[in-house]
């Protein structure tokens, strides 16, 4: 492993701790950190602008019980850096990073469709990207653990 990626990971660790975040795992070529929601944009700007991880590979949503977690995976060289925020299901609002990373626009729409997280500041938040138009508003978003596949099939009219 190059010392360059080692330095990169050390730098991200330092920045995240400075922003009140927590390093969850760190290996030679991958790092996962957890950030307070309100410091997300600062962290994204630091990672993309200061450390050059300008490529956002994707965003992953995770259902962790009372919260929805959103992971932002950034890639540069042999390093994948994942920033994690946790949004309570009762709030489901998070800041949009579209201004810092324009390429995030469709990923935010995807997480919005699948997990119901509203990204404040994303200009296309009122549109659907992947879900069918007839997906009922009273059915929870499909990838939440509580939503049953059979209910989704029934709701969109493909029940066998």
């Amino acid at each position, binding site marked *: 492993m190059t010392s360059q990626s080692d330095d990169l990971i050390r730098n991200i660790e330092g920045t995240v701790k400075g922003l009140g975040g927590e390093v969850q795992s760190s290996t030679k070529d991958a790092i996962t950190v957890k950030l307070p929601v309100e410091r997300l944009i600062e962290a994204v700007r630091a990672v993309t602008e200061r450390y050059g991880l300008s*490529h956002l590979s994707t965003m*992953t949503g995770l259902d962790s019980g009372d919260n929805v977690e959103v992971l932002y995976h950034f890639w540069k060289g042999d390093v*994948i850096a994942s920033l994690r925020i946790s949004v309570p299901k009762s709030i489901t609002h998070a800041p949009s990073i579209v201004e810092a*990373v324009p*390429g995030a626009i469709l990923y935010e729409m995807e997480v919005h469709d699948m997990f119901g997280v509203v990204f404040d500041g994303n200009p296309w938040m009122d549109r659907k*990207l*992947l879900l069918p138009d007839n997906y009922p508003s009273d059915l929870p978003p499909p990838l939440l653990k509580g939503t049953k596949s059979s209910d989704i099939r029934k709701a969109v009219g493909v029940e066998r």
Partner: protein
Amino acid sequence: MTEPKETRKEAGAGLIQYSTENLVPFGPIHPALKEPEYFKLYLRGETIVDVIPRIGYVHRGLEKAAEQRRWTQNTYMFERTCGICSFAHSLAYVQAVEGLTSYEIPQRALYIRLIVAELERIHSHLLWVGLLGHWAGFDTLFMWVWRDREIVLDLVEAVAGNRVHKSLATIAGVKKDIPDNMKGKILERTKHLADRAYFYKGIVDTETTLLARTRKVGILKAETAQKLCAVGPLVRAAGLARDVRADDPYAAYGDVPIDVVTRGDGDVFSLLHVRLDEIVTAANCIDYALAHMPSGPIRLKIPPNIPVGEYATHIEAPRGELFYFVKSNGTAIPERVKARTPTLANLPTALELLKGHTMADVPVVLTAIDPCFGCMDRLSFVDLDTRNQWSWTGEELRQYGIKRYFPERKT
């Protein structure tokens, strides 16, 4: 070509801000795209000023389904995400699962993965070059290239037993070996395909149809590609040397020398060159890998339960970076599997590229990103000036494009 079919006063009523512009719904069924996808095109005169996408017509809920199937079963399911880069999907998935474990994957299996992945790249790139020829109005190229595509499909069938779904990757190895007596055949045919790629490069450089339709069309600047997080041949044509195979080697790519092909212009013409050159580099990779492939076992037997953890990985699929994320709760069924295909990553870039082009360029520019969504066969237009709405089939749009560039040609 069809004249406006229908006049609707209320068309675009909610779009007053676009009063001198036209709205063109493109898709969801349209053959310029191999799968259904919907683009709303706003036109000023003939020039596209804005594009709004709507995808998900073939969203089958694989990520939800994965949470109800075993780790091994999911290998087969994710392979079926795509018919062209099927091996790339299964490879990225098993690689993500292997990341959660600490098994030492047999070296020979890693080499076989590389060889099949490169065969798939040759196939995908040939397919794309042919389709671009078709959309640009040069069907001879389409027929020649697709004839050559049969050669690589036969090779894939010889190695994996299937033309499309290779079913070769499995957690902790591969399922079929490449016997020594097959190496000669693979070498001979990949070399032939590399020669053909050189031949096509000669055609691309000199043929007027292709030059007129691809040069300075769909120009992508490196900073735009970076900003919009584009991946694959698209960014390499714009001059960024970004390739997972070289930057973050997986399978046996760490041992095999790989040339990252880049061009500086970022137009469709550069993309043609990048893809044709990558056919040659893929053939070189296969050549090297076959010569240096170690002997030994090709797979490990592993228990069905995968240790608790999260792992993110990516590979360079033919269309670009293919990203997988997996989370295990320690059982035989995953907690979460996330796949991000290269087309989704390139979609914001395609939308940006279309702006400023005319309707005639839509098929060529959209094909440029090698979209993978389904098969669309109709598109309707709304002219907000005259409030006309009309429909064209994809073929009519293709003819329109050809007529516009070559008015004297009989179609």
